[in-house]
């Protein structure tokens, strides 16, 4: 079910529920920017600094409508996070968007082929966030 354009709400049984996006980026600067971009579109945002913390949160939080993650992170990359999410029966329906500052066609294709919803080039713009609004998990 698609969300209203630019809106951060979806219809639930108990009325409107705010769409929850999990943002993952080891850069404090980029985390602040992506969180602000998403909040400006009225999404609820949880921002974490590693894929490991993202997986911990996904283990306990059931209400995540989208994951947006940086590609290049130490220890576990955004690509590895994508694979873990798509391999999990519980998590695989959550759309995963990858962000990167590198315009590498091989990298982009690999992510998309392995289930990424979209691939955004950094710095991410408001127009990039707008085009994601119809892809959130309901």
């Amino acid at each position, binding site marked *: 079910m698609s969300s209203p354009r630019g809106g951060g709400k979806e219809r639930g049984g108990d009325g409107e529920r705010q769409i929850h996006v999990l943002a993952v980026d080891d*850069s404090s600067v980029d985390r602040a920017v992506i969180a602000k*971009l998403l909040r400006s579109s009225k999404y609820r945002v949880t921002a974490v600094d590693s894929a490991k913390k993202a997986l911990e949160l996904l283990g306990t939080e059931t209400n995540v409508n989208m994951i947006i993650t940086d590609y290049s992170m130490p220890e576990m990359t955004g690509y590895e996070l994508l694979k873990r999410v798509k391999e999990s029966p519980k998590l695989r329906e959550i759309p995963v968007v990858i962000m990167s*500052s590198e315009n590498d066609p091989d990298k982009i294709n690999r992510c998309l082929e392995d289930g990424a919803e979209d691939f955004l080039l950094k710095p991410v713009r*408001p127009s990039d966030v707008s085009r994601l609004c119809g892809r959130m998990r309901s």
Partner: protein
Amino acid sequence: MESSDLQRRYIDFTSTLFREGFLDSQYTQLQQLQDESNPEFVTEVVTLFFQDSEKLQDDLTRTLDQEVVDFKKVAAHVHQLKGSSASIGAQRVKNVCMAFRICCEEMNREGCLGCLQQARQEYFLVKSKLETVFRLEQQIVAGGGSIPTMW
């Protein structure tokens, strides 16, 4: 100084920063994101950039100082510095990082040291200029004026 004089000075100063390539349109994007719900957004993000950059420069100095340089580590730090400078629109710092990456790929220690020095220079320049911008903004607001929009 009169509020209108301060506003004029602010416009001249920030226009110059864009004209001279210190800042690019990404900085304008950040300004456009700032709103009543987070009126200090730009200052907060830029402060994070200052903290991040200074740490990365220290890390780069340490890594390049090793007897055997781990160029993968250097490249990783440069990638982070390039990313965060791009995210706030610090164009000249970002551009130095692009040259820096090439030196890393070539495993050219002297080249890397030169790039680090340049990155440091550009960083301190843009830091000083942004601090002036923020000071002018504070003075304008304290004088009861509003900060001119640059877009």
